[in-house]
């Protein structure tokens, strides 16, 4: 059984994938909770992660992926992780990272917060040492940075995964019951025939979990705008990779912003761009779920920032009409007054959203032990 845990962090992203084989993969890190606040309903992320690692007798993650280095995806990371490049960020009860996954622009771009800079420095350090790192991009996009480091593409090519590929070590052949397929960052061919890197795009994975030959698929997106998503769909179809767009679970991009569906918000419901509509309306499976990592969906338009009710209305309608599915919001699960991490178990019956009665462990204690006679 595999597990995906999505943490309630307001309008910020962090989720963890626990594989049946014990591997743990963390996606983003946003420690946003006001420390010592009694009214902040967002979860205490470092605490949740530490408790889980302690339970598993682990001191670190097999993979920590940063979909991009915006503050709501890396906040507090410099205080939480044990990084290799600077003693200042080492020791104590810091959490280890076996393999760091970042998009190429995390290596090359400037203008970052303190936490973003630490992650960038760590990614560069690991890339220079050619270990414990995976970069996602068209390899050529790194050439100029490599030249400045007096390195060649051949030195690090094996550490780079382009869109349209599966992540080495994490594909079906590796026997972990999971396969990560990369949709973004990607490049697209321009009218003049040259390739333009969509480097501003954050990581987008299509994950296939397999249990007893039953597949469960998840489309895990970060801050992907509609035109990028539309292009991902177009390119993937052009390569005949439609199966990489099938979904049982979608982690919505950008906190349920209408801008991940279309340029126009719409009055009551956002009308998505055509290929995005195709993705949501035809590629889902019965009983599918869509998760918005956000605050509750507002009832009005007073706040221009996401989440947007018009986008939510679209997702809800599609799920209800087409898939008998469920639209979930991290900050209202299980209730708006007491959100808790959202846990999906994945087994041969596909997704199960965990609903534990808080009072006690269910199972052994709720039945009389059988008496053998």
């Amino acid at each position, binding site marked *: 059984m595999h597990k995906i845990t999505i943490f309630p962090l307001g309008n910020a992203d962090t989720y963890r994938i626990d594989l049946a084989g014990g591997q743990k993969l963390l996606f983003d890190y946003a420690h946003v909770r006001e420390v010592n606040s009694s009214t902040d309903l967002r979860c205490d992320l470092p605490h949740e992660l530490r408790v889980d690692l302690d339970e598993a007798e682990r001191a670190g993650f097999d993979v920590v992926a940063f979909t991009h280095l915006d503050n709501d995806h890396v906040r507090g990371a410099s205080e939480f992780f044990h990084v290799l490049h600077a003693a200042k960020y080492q020791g104590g009860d810091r959490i280890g990272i076996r393999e760091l996954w970042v998009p190429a622009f995390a290596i090359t771009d400037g203008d970052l917060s303190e936490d973003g800079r630490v992650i960038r420095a760590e990614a560069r350090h690991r890339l220079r040492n050619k270990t414990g790192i995976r970069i996602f991009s068209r390899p050529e996009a790194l050439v100029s940075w490599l030249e400045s480091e007096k390195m060649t593409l051949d030195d690090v090519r094996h550490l780079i995964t382009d869109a349209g590929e599966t992540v080495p070590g994490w594909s079906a052949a590796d026997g972990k019951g999971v396969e990560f397929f990369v949709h973004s960052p990607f490049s697209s061919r321009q009218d003049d025939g040259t390739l333009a890197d969509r480097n501003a795009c954050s990581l987008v994975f299509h994950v296939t979990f397999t249990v007893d030959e*039953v597949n*469960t698929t998840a489309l895990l997106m970060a801050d992907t705008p509609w035109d990028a998503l539309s292009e991902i769909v177009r390119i993937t179809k052009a390569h005949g990779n439609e199966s990489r767009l099938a979904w*049982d679970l979608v982690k919505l991009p950008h906190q349920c912003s209408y801008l991940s569906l279309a340029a126009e918000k719409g009055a009551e419901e956002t009308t998505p761009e055509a290929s995005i509509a195709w993705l949501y309306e035809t590629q889902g*499976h*019965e*009983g*599918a*779920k869509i998760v918005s990592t956000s605050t509750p969906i507002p009832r009005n338009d007073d706040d221009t920032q996401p989440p947007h009710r018009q986008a939510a209305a679209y997702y809800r309608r599609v799920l*209800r009409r087409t898939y*008998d599915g*469920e639209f979930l919001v991290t900050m209202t699960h*299980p*209730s708006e007054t007491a959100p808790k991490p959202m846990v999906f178990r994945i*087994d*041969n*019956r*596909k*997704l*199960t*959203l*965990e*609903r*534990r*009665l*808080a*009072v*006690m462990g*269910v*199972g052994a*204690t*709720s*039945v*009389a032990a*059988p*008496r053998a006679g």
Partner: protein
Amino acid sequence: MTSQRDSDPRLSPSNESSSETGVRGGPTVQGGNAQTQDSPRESSTDLTGTPSAAVWAGTLLSSIDECEVFQLTLPRARWLAEFIASGALAPWVTLDRCRRVMDREVVEFRIRVELPQRRAYDIFDEEPIVVVIQADASVMPEVLAVRSDFPADVPHRNLSEDVRPVSLCLYDVRFRDIAASWTPSRFIARIQEWLQLTARGELHGADQPLEPLFLGMPEMVIVPHALIEQALQAKPVDLTQTLCIDLRVTGVRIDPPNEPFRVRLYQGAEPMFGSTSRSHVAIVIRLRARTHGAIRSTPRSLEEVIQALESEGDTPVQALRARVSTMCREQSASGEAHVILVLVVPVRREDGQPVTNVQTLTILTTLTFEEIGRRLGVLERFGGVLVPLLTPSEVQPLNNVPIFLAQTYRTLTREDLAQQQGLSEALEHRVVCIGAGALGSQVIRNAARSAAGRWTIVDDDALLPHNISRHVELDGDLGVHKALLAAAGANCTADSEPVHDAIIADILTPGPKAETVANALAGADLLVDMSASVTVARALARDTAPSVRCVSFFLSPTGQYLTMLAEDRERTVSLDLLEMQLYRAAIESEPLHALYTERGGRIRYGQSCRDISATVPQSVIAVHAGIATMQLTHLLQEGSGGGARLQVWRLDEQTGEVSCTPIPAYAAQIQRVGAWLIVTDEGLLTRLYEEREAKLPCETGGILLGHYDFVRRIVYIVATLPPPADSRGGPDRFTRGYRGLTRAVAAVQARTAGQFTYIGEWHSHPRGCSCLPSTPDENLFSWIRTTLLADCLPPLMLIVGDEGAVPYLETLPADSAYPAVFPVPTGFSS
């Protein structure tokens, strides 16, 4: 009733207007509601239905029963309602309302359920639940899933009069066994778990009989499993047709003759107790294969049974008419016999899948065979003789024919036995067992109960009064051969063709049974000796030499110890050698010193040292029989690599603690010298070489202990004792001292029940020397000869040197040749 849509919790999970009508008091009940309106039943006094369901359904029509939580008076109802109202389970459980209905109280709530994306049963995200609590606190609170379209074919529901509401069967134990630990939180957790496991199709025990919780079906029918199998295979094997099977139930046994009705159906074999009667006749009907149970509500008349079956596409009337005619023609039923209908229902998991399960339902009718034939329009009496009609007349109404559903149990197969005992399958190995005494009879019965092996029991004893206290058989069997009793008892553990048999013979002198015994041995996979006779074990090891692996189990005289001597599969370490190594362990291993001590501390001597004394409690034998059975099961399951094993279990009768002493089983070393076979083992040779090594360059030595078999002319050299303190050794000499030696040998004899005696001397030769006797050795040998010949024993001297251990027996060789050489054990340079 208002439309169905608004009660669909998927679409509107909560907060429906409670001001709608009183009907909104609970979710809608589709069928049940209409029925309630048409014919309101005397719900609370109707003992044949599910009273709680009826109570609940009856309250639908009005809201006057509603009450506040604090108005509830029954402790469990109040506790449950208060707990939910407290919000402790929010947001998963929400209280809807409470009611007081006559002497019962009702708590209604909604529970949210963890659902897999792919569901086996259509459980909803949120399910409305009604709990009915009776004034009688010994009655389990009944749990009703009241959604109008809640799946009615779920396993583990209580049988109720109507299809809905579905009454959840939460526990597979009686409520009184959990009443003391009942809490609202556990109760609700169990309800949620039931729903969740049902949604996954993983609620265990789906093949259990429907729980007759409120109906209290006291009637029981026990059906031979073979009958069910034959029904499934009956031709034509067209599982889309209803078929009355041409299967004859030869008799029914009814115990006791009055209420409640408990019936066992027989085919062929007669019961051990009581006798069968022809007062009832069973008709077996195979229904069409389906994906759920046969009958989901409780029919009250034969008419309702037929309607229920016909609604599933079965044609019971047609099938019954044909079968009743045939039975009448064949005169296989008397007209006065009451009719029992056995419904065999092939169940498949999903449409198009093979049949994986069979349900059996038994219906007791109040009609005789003649009456049912007349009602079906196929029988008539002409001139006092009941005959089938050539042209059947119309079927008469059957709605005034009351019926009783009986709990149906199927008899066990060997596979069932194995499964219940935790074996993956019945073990069909052939086991020949020598001895069906106290230990043997119990081990055989144990093994038969777990379908471990097909046993042939060889014993020529008859059951005598003094056996009874420690034997599985009983007073009524006195005088009968133990082998027959053991085989018959073993065959009665499953309802199958006999697989165990008996040979009444003494294994040592089978006489006319010699060929039978030989055949049994030839076909055996394992020979189990529980004869408690050393003679038998020796014979098995040395004389009969069957190619089959042997294992001996026996108790010590006090019953405190159980010993297992198990040969390896290739029989390189035979029973007699294992026996010798056991004696050696009794000398050398402290926990085994008392192996042959009798109760009261008396020491026992003599050949029959495996006989138990007269005062061993049966409880002790039962413990050992259990251990022996476990070991036997392991041996049967062992693959080809089964090595020799020697183990002793000691039971502490005060604390009940059992400790196990494993003893290493060493490979045999056998040499022939003259007319004698000299048998020793790697264990002793290793010890002798260790002592030699320790004293080099000087010589060392000591006495040899062992056993003679004069019939087979075997000397077993098994043990030695450390040289007495006054022994003297040099590079070219060794003189064995004597201080304390007599006492030491006496102790050896005590610890081995006299089996071990002094048999000769050994000494080492230093490096570079041959193992030929020197002149002092010749003197030593003639001293041994003088000493032992006085006791009619052959003199033995063993010289341990570079070339091996050389035994000199009876005489010294005239030429300079070794009579035999035991090789130097591995690890010692020669």
